[in-house]
């Protein structure tokens, strides 16, 4: 049930994953703050809305809609039940799995919706839109690399370890401009260094959760595929033993 993507789409997505963050960095360096902020919000908002619009048609498929919902719910719930351990949360790993098993678009949506919904608990704010955008990018990137990530655990770990810092680096561009008013190497470094401990913790917890969840996810998705092939609820799958 993974979305078969055309080559054209894949190129478009690679462009989104690589280009938009690059554009944001360039804009941050070039544009004055008063211009950069609206532009950055607009870029993030457009990307998020575009993906939601793209998913709109797929959402008609009940199974797909429900799987995106359950992945999102798992990562929001993960953020809640592991609230006691800061930084140690399965959020990114679930967005990555969503990308791998449901396709890049669904992966983006899971990441974005996780940020949006969990912030009703953890605090909604202006950062929500940037969080949605960067978490979504992680899911999208995982979707693009799905064939590789599915095969090799090493690749999965590397992807997980990179996802955390990638996210922090994107968010930091924005927070630098917001706090210091200008974007320069010095101010950017000051922001990234401040969030470094969290970034490292993120990377570690991602790898841990990816490794732990890889098997259960694979099995659960294999079971779901069988169930989906039957297009029915649980009972028919169960062995017909007495009692």
């Amino acid at each position: 049930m993974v979305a078969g993507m055309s080559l054209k789409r894949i190129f478009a997505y690679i462009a989104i994953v690589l280009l938009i963050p690059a554009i944001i960095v360039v804009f941050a360096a070039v544009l004055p703050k008063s211009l950069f902020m609206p532009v950055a919000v607009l870029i993030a908002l457009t990307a998020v809305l575009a993906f939601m619009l793209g998913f709109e048609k797929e959402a008609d498929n009940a199974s797909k809609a429900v799987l995106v919902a359950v992945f999102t719910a798992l990562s929001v719930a993960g953020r809640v039940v592991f609230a006691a351990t800061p930084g140690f949360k399965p959020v990114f790993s679930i967005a990555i799995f969503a990308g791998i098993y449901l396709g890049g678009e669904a992966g983006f949506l899971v990441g974005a919706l996780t940020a949006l919904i969990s912030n009703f608990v953890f605090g909604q704010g202006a950062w929500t839109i940037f969080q949605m955008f960067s978490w979504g990018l992680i899911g999208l990137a995982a979707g693009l690399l799905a064939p590789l990530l599915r095969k090799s655990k090493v690749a999965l770990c590397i992807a997980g370890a990179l996802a955390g810092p990638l996210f922090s680096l994107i968010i930091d561009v924005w927070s630098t401009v917001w706090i210091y008013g200008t974007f320069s190497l010095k101010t950017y470094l000051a922001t990234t260094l401040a969030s470094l401990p969290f970034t490292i913790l993120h990377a570690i917890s991602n790898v841990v959760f990816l490794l732990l969840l890889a098997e259960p996810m694979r099995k659960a998705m294999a079971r779901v595929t069988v169930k989906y092939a039957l297009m029915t609820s649980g009972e028919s799958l169960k062995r017909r033993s007495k009692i």
Partner: protein
Amino acid sequence: MAKKLQIKDLNFKYALGDRYVLRGIDLELDAGEKVLLSGISGSGKSTLLKVISPMTSPRGGRSGSVLIDGTDVRDMPRLDITSKVAYVAQNPENGIVVDTVYGELAFCCENIGMNREEVRRRVAWTASYFGIEDILKRKISELSGGQKQIVSLAAAIMLKPEILLLDEPTTYLDPIQAVRFLDLVDNLNRDFGMTVIVAEHRVESFAGRFDRVVKIEEGVLLDMDVRTSFNETDMFYERVFALNDGAVNTGDPAVSVKNLEFRYAKDGPNVLDGANVDIPKGSIYALLGANGCGKTTFLRCLTCELKPQRGNVKIRSQCAAMTQNPLSMFIEETPEKDYRFFLKQKGFKKEEADARISEVAEKLELTEDILKTNVLDLSGGETERAAMAKLLLAGADVLLFDEPTKGLDSAAKAKLTGIMKELAERGITIIFVTHDVGFALSTADRAGVLSAGSILE
């Protein structure tokens, strides 16, 4: 005039199976008729309900036909079938789609693109008809199981269906909730002439409500003549209290509770208000009581999960408890893997663990096949026994159960009775709280009723 629903020589097998689950089903229902579809689990009754509408039909080989008002369902537009046939699932946890009661009621109408003002009117009417106006703006997660199932029924009839299919809708409800639910179904049938099919395995207690009872056995439909009996779930406590008359007290009690008092809020009322009970070793004790009387609170006091404000609980040996959902006992894929992980944490070596597992498995009639099956594929009875095994592996000889018969059919209950009795003979003390008076009478050798905070014997 054509019949409301006609099923003609229907055969069905699942896409991944080779056995026909339904064989030559013939069934005709008049408008407004109410039929009870009985049969043991796995007999094909759920499948029959699903196959009726193409919207819910599983993939597989199908022959024969289903006609509504004389038209084959496969020739009807999908929108028509959706609004004519409503389906309510067994488990309210899986039968509800969205997060709020209002949203759930509106869900059907939203799907077919109904006018917003019309949706509001229908929600308003349905809420008042079912008496759920007070919970209309609530979240589903705040509701009780009985309320959830009523919401699920209300959501299903939003499009004014003519045929209502219910798949064992009361399995997860307690007796009072079940009666309330079936009353609502009766009302729908009486007030709007809805044609109703209810799949149910507890025939005796419900048959009186139906025009006709049919039975499905190994995929074949048979007519059935049932005499309604009124004593199935005996609401009278005499027989419960009578259990204690025959019981003899031998030696020290395994569990002794004295003057237990517990309340949840500082100045709140006492949920347990001086509860006293002595339970001898090797006996099976059933604790009965109405909804919200504090049965589960009592159990949680026994497991030390809650610390009582007054009184004390003495348990002479190791005790272990099982929650209402036996599935939550497992954190590994199969029972065997789970036991291994558990015993490893408990500090057992591999050989020791294996020996213990096979010993307990034998006691509980857990076959090799069951031990190696994914817990999600086990039947209700199997899950229950596999979870019991975990309690025994924990070295417990006082076992506590919260509603052990929830979701079990009569065959599984009978098996559970046998196993509990056998364990008791080996000196294991069993305590369970339940709504199921019939099960308590057939299984327990003593019983108490929790009311107004204390235990009556």
